[in-house]
């Protein structure tokens, strides 16, 4: 490898520092333009007619009166919808059958919102109402209403096996059997979905609030049968995503259909209720867990049977199975997952996809068996977690064909335990219950990979020596503009202040899979690093003749000065090199999946929480929360801590609310507002008690040893709190959220009844 700035192992000047985001001023002055802030001349307003039924066939649909209304410019129904699925293989932009209450039936564009609202009422739809089903297990029973011709079960069950689980459970000294349930939960962001579409002949531009512009690009190109070059997706500033914006959705397609028909630009802005109902939700998960241990504190067998409610359509299938098998050494494992369609809204990835739900089940079960055996739950974990060099599955099978590297989960546990002062916890669960307010401490571990999928980026160095990073994943609040520019700054020796970034634009940046699944740093970040090194080589080659024909290997750039490494007094400003060269330098970088060979790199964490439960009211107060994370080498420490703190509160949010509840009589969502979902405010959890801890480490696949992080902080909250409540009260909560009513009911039940 040629000599380079910031060689691996060399001193780093940018990576690993703290500091504000490079776009901080735009964000605090209101200058940052989010999709909904874009105003195009002649732009029409779109509205969507939504199904009043949970399940129905559209018998007839008459849009003539709406079309005749003055000011209406286009109306579309399933008849106009391109016969190309939006994403996955179940849903067109509009369908002749609706499978949840709130599904789009028709869309229209008009000159203003009032006209559009009025026109919606003029669309005459006759429905043939069908029976519906809301629960995944009910949906698998004979005679259940069927959503699709091939049934409600989506594909074959995902089954991972290793060893012989039945044999292992039979041979184990103790086995417990438990059921853990997470309901369907909200997964949205502060910015509701919004899409603006504009056609120029057969060239389509869509401004989308997307995490993955190229996924939208591919979807719309296929839908309208356009070459890639005729589509441009722009997602510059995105007001949060959390998974709901990681895949193409109906809104982008509807805006494009309407704009094509109306021959004018169209904005489709979802209301908050639409965003909650027709985006995607965190899927309901019911896990039947059997876990067996031997008296020597070793895990022997684990069986998980999970039913995942995929709703009417899915942007991602539930993918449980890693939390137990990647974290712990267990000789006999079987995980079965049934992904089932029901008549509730779409499901899809939500910060961690299924990991928070799975972590709740697994980490509760681990805690339960440890308590059952009288073991310290932390010691039990330390004894059974995988360590570096242990076998681990590389792919989606149960076969452990890889080897774990750069794992520091044990250090996360040890450091977290020290900070929370684990030894203070009740040795006998519930023994703090003599007082009206009982305290308890709990722990939960988690893990995830990162960086999968194709990544690309380019870096341009301008004639004045300033630089620009172009990438088509996005900054959804994760600070990727800053982190990626810091990587390029470190490589190029150009100060961060001299960088600009263009994010989320499919016309100016190379293909990239998008920002989801812990992948922006390890995927796009590696691409940016490669692109910056490409620039560096070109610049050093151009500088050689200006420095007595020094070879690139002898040169480096520091603070925008190209200099001879051996004699820094021989130097030339970068700007002079660029002007002499007379052309901008453009570097190109791309990667595929970063895992290579048998080495498997994962990102893990341990969360410790101390709670105080008021036994009279059932109120749970978080007294202290330590989130100890492996992030590899942090690129920007401030951003990493901010992600950990925010993600931790998002995980805690799932313990108190955010549940989408459905009326069993109508299938209507009863909680489609912030008032009902109760996402946490600054008062719900005291943010000061949350401590983000970065465990020193260096990865091998990410840029400068960094690891993707975004998903993980959200995983352990439910399990950690359930375990802490058990430690405080001696009662076990196996159904999220942990409402006061559930806690009080569990306390009542405990009287005279042994719980575990």
């Amino acid at each position, binding site marked *: 490898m040629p000599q380079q700035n910031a060689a691996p192992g060399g001193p780093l000047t940018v990576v690993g520092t703290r500091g504000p985001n490079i776009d901080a*001023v735009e964000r605090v002055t209101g200058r940052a333009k989010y999709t909904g802030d874009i105003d195009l001349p002649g732009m029409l307003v779109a509205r969507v007619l939504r199904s009043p039924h949970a399940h129905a066939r559209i018998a007839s649909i008459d849009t003539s009166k709406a079309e005749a209304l003055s000011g209406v410019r286009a109306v579309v129904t399933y008849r106009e919808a391109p016969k190309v699925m939006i994403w996955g293989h179940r849903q067109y932009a509009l369908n002749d059958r609706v499978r949840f209450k709130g599904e789009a039936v028709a869309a229209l564009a008009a000159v203003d919102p009032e006209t559009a609202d009025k026109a919606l009422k003029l669309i005459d739809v006759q429905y043939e109402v069908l029976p519906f089903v809301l629960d995944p297990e009910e949906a698998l029973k004979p005679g259940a209403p069927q959503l699709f011709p091939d049934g409600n079960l989506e594909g074959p069950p995902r089954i991972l096996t290793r060893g012989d689980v039945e044999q292992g459970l039979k041979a184990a000294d103790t086995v417990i059997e438990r059921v853990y349930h997470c309901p369907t939960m909200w997964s949205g962001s502060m910015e509701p979905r919004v899409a603006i579409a504009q056609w120029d002949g057969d060239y389509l531009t869509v401004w989308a609030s997307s995490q993955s512009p190229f996924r939208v690009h591919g979807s719309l190109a296929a839908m309208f049968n356009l070459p890639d070059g005729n589509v441009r997706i722009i997602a510059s500033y995105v007001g949060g995503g959390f998974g709901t914006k990681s895949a193409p959705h109906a809104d982008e397609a509807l805006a494009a259909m309407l704009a094509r028909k109306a021959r004018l630009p169209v904005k489709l802005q979802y209301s908050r209720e639409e965003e909650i109902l027709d985006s995607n939700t965190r899927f309901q998960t019911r896990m039947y867990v059997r876990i067996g241990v031997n008296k020597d504190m070793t895990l022997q067998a684990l069986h998980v049977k999970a039913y995942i409610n995929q709703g009417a359509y899915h942007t991602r299938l539930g993918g449980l199975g890693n939390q137990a098998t990647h974290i712990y050494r267990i000789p006999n494992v079987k995980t079965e997952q049934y992904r089932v369609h029901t008549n509730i809204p779409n499901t899809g990835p939500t910060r961690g996809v299924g990991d928070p739900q799975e972590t709740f089940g697994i980490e509760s079960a681990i805690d339960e068996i440890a308590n059952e055996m009288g073991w310290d739950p932390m010691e039990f974990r330390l004894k059974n977690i995988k360590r570096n060099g242990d076998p681990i599955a590389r792919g989606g099978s149960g076969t452990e064909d890889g080897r774990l590297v750069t794992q520091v989960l044990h250090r996360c546990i040890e450091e977290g335990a020290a900070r929370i002062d684990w030894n203070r916890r009740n040795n006998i669960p519930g023994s703090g219950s003599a007082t009206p307010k009982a305290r308890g401490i709990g722990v939960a571990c988690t893990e995830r990979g990162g960086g999968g999928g194709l990544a690309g980026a380019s870096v341009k160095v301008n004639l004045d020596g300033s630089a620009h990073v172009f990438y088509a994943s996005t900054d959804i609040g994760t600070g990727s503009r800053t982190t990626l520019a810091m990587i390029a700054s470190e490589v190029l020796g150009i100060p961060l202040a001299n960088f600009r970034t263009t994010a989320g634009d499919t016309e100016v940046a190379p293909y990239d899979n998008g920002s989801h699944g812990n992948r922006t740093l390890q995927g796009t970040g590696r691409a940016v690093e490669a692109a910056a090194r490409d620039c560096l080589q070109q610049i050093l080659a151009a500088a050689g003749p200006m420095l007595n024909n020094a070879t690139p290997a002898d040169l480096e750039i520091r603070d925008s000065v190209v200099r001879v490494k051996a004699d820094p007094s021989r130097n030339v400003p970068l700007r002079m090199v660029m002007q002499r060269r007379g052309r901008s330098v453009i570097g190109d970088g791309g990667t595929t999946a970063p895992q290579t060979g048998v080495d498997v790199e994962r990102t893990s964490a341990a969360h410790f929480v101390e709670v105080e439960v008021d036994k009279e009211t059932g109120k749970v107060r978080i007294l202290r929360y330590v989130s100890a994370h492996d992030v590899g080498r942090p690129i920007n420490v401030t951003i990493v801590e901010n992600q950990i703190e925010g993600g931790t509160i998002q995980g805690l949010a799932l313990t108190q609310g955010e549940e989408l509840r459905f009326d069993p009589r109508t299938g209507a969502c009863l909680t489609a507002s912030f008032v009902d979902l109760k996402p946490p405010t600054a*008062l719900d959890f005291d943010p000061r008690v949350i401590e983000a801890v970065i465990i020193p480490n260096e990865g091998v696949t990410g840029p400068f040893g960094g690891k993707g992080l975004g998903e993980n902080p959200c995983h352990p909250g439910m399990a950690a709190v359930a375990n802490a409540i058990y430690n405080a009260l001696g009662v076990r909560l196996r159904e999220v959220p942990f409402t006061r009513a559930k806690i009080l009911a569990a306390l009542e039940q405990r009287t005279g009844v042994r719980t575990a």
Partner: protein
Amino acid sequence: MSDKERKHADTFSASRRSFLKGGAAATGALSASLIPGTAEAQLPEATTPDPHRSTIEMRVNGKAYRKEIANRTTLLQFLREDLKLTGTKMGCDRLQCGACTVVLNGRNVYSCTTLALEASAGDVLTIEGLATDDKLHPIQQAFVEHSGYQCGFCTSGQIMSTKVFLDRSPQPTEDQARLALSGNLCRCAAYKRILESVMAASRLLRA
């Protein structure tokens, strides 16, 4: 007929039919300003003013505006659509999230559920009016230095609530700050750094 359409129609009917033919069918929206170069005296008298529209005057970020709007227009719509001040965001349109918070006559209000009419004759401050001469306001400076945001979508609202709070409570406690900002949701849950930003801002403002 929609507001926009009505305006188009009024212009059309006034110039091509009603006015040229000397008819008196013009609606209340018809005014001299719609027909440039026409002296007011020549206009037919507006007989029935449109009860659904009003003219409002408002000071926004120190600048005086006089606009005719539909009565139903919210302050949020007025700011974003009429004045093109898009720094104020729509998060729920239901008084539930605070992304649309602006300062009206010294009080922080949810602009999504404040009618522009209610704010008529009022003094409005939005995120765009906080910085002066390209210099960040100390509150903005504090939010930058302490990374008091992630995606930034709620940030304008957080900052405007902070402005009112610190105007009233220059030396707040952290708990007072949490309470004062509890009407502003942050889904990224950057609450720890928002709180640090508010406290840092109070120190900057006192310095």
